[in-house]
């Protein structure tokens, strides 16, 4: 029995989201393993879904807690839909609604050769730095981001260290004093 087949009834949040996107192909997969409502969406519709989650009165997701990326290069079989889409990366958003006190995890699988997705910085300003960190460490490009530069690493760093194909013991080229 796979880990994501938890059965059980959908929470009101999940029901509302499923009902909203019933006809479209946006929702690839949903589960609520360990009680965390999770939906997996097409990367193209990320702005659409996020605006709906934020503006809908019943959902009212007003705090974007976390944006991060995950690299499933070595074990794509963890998530059921990854091998089907030929996806390697996955951008994960954790959003929380302060009024309704419920959470949701939105995931968007990305292909290895073009890890590009729309930025949600215009919906929640807190995404600004999170997306810069995802770009810095994973190389995921966020289209429409105000200033997508490295945040944790120095400018001259070559490569994206948290990718699975980046060896832990790799050395970086030495950079001398600039002036």
């Amino acid at each position, binding site marked *: 029995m796979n*880990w994501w087949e938890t059965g059980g009834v959908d929470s009101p949040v999940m029901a509302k989201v499923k009902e909203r996107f019933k006809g479209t192909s946006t929702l690839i997969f949903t589960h609520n393993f*360990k009680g965390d409502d999770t939906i997996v969406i097409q990367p193209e519709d990320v702005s659409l879904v996020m605006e709906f989650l934020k503006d809908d009165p019943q959902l009212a997701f*007003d705090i974007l807690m976390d944006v991060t990326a995950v690299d499933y290069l070595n074990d794509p079989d963890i998530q059921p839909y990854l091998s089907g889409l030929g996806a390697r990366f996955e951008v994960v958003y*954790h959003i929380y609604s302060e009024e309704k006190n419920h959470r949701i995890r939105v995931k968007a699988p990305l292909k290895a050769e073009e890890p590009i997705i729309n930025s949600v910085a215009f919906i*929640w*300003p*807190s995404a600004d*730095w999170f997306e810069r960190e995802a770009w810095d460490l994973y190389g995921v490009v966020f289209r429409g981001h105000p200033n997508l530069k490295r945040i944790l690493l*120095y400018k001259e760093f070559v490569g994206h260290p948290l990718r699975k194909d980046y060896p832990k013991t790799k050395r970086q080229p030495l950079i001398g004093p600039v002036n």
Partner: protein
Amino acid sequence: MSEQPKKDYDFHKEHHTELLTVNMGPSHPATHGTVKFMLALDGETIENIEVDVGYLHRGFEKECEAQTWTGVFPYTDRLDYLASVINNVGYAMTVEKLIGITTPERCQYIRVITSELARMGAHFTCLGAGALELGALTAFIYFVEAREMVWDLIESVCGARLTHNYVRIGGLTSDLPDGFAGNVKTTFKECRRLWIDFDKLLTKNRIFLDRMRDVGGISSADAKAWGFTGPCLRAAGVPYDVRRAEPYLVYDRVDFEIPVGETGDNYDRFQVRLEEIEQSMRIVEQCLVQMPEGPVNVNNPEWRQPSKDLSSGNIEYMIHHFKNVLEGIHVPKGEAYQAVEGANGELGYYIVSNGSGYPVKMRVRPPCFPITSALPMLIKGRLIADLIPTFDMLNLIGGECDR
């Protein structure tokens, strides 16, 4: 008298003054060493500010992916190094959520006690440093003295003052020392005396009020949009505390209040943290009373290392012990996110496991990371002297923000 001069015409066009660009940090007295502000100053007013973090980036995630699930604990100590136990508790609870085990009663109580002691230590440091940056050296030393006593308490429990490394998946490394309740009582009496002195020194002090009030304020809607959590969000008037919103461990059995501010400026953040120290003391006292006797570890050798005198004799336990140390415990496949109320806000762990002994993804949601991203919005157009208290009250912790 502390109102900012409103600029209604473009100062530069009129006076062609050149902006003085200054680098404040990364090793500047006010930046505690790990952040650089690139300031464009027009006289004393900050025209443009760019915050540059990442000076304490040690590759936490990459390091954890090469460690077993149990070997990650010393690394979680070094995230918010002022309150290490809270990081440990957060990580341990996330993994326990993924595995599906719950720890015994006494262990949950001890986790709450040590977390609250660590939170007190973190708030003492933050408030003390805030007062120090404004020149009130004596107030800083009073809170450092209080912090020393709390750290001595934690040292008698965990074994170290700063990097506690106390919690394990499915339990704790050791039980509370004997006579701990007595020590707590005397320490808290001293802490309350110093707390009152600090409060009297600063809270109604006009100089302090003028420096802190109406500086770096943020509305509750903006606070939520910018991802504020913890004392900074509560100061903005939003009563969101993970210990109340999603009670974990035994927080639903203890009675404590959440301090909430109004305008979200520095003075509110200062007051919210000051009040939270008092609440933490109440929580610890109630926990010490309600705490039952009994085991502190899950009696299941697959997850938690068995007791020593059993394993050294019994070969079956020995096999489990060797496998767990060498390969790490085999956490079942899946992903989980668990949020804990850290000293600066919601400290979330998102882990993905592929069933082996090594994590695939070990993400820490740093509470002070989005808060610092809002600093330019809070401080643009204000004086350089306002940047210091605002930065202190946002309480950026290098280890947690840069990971």
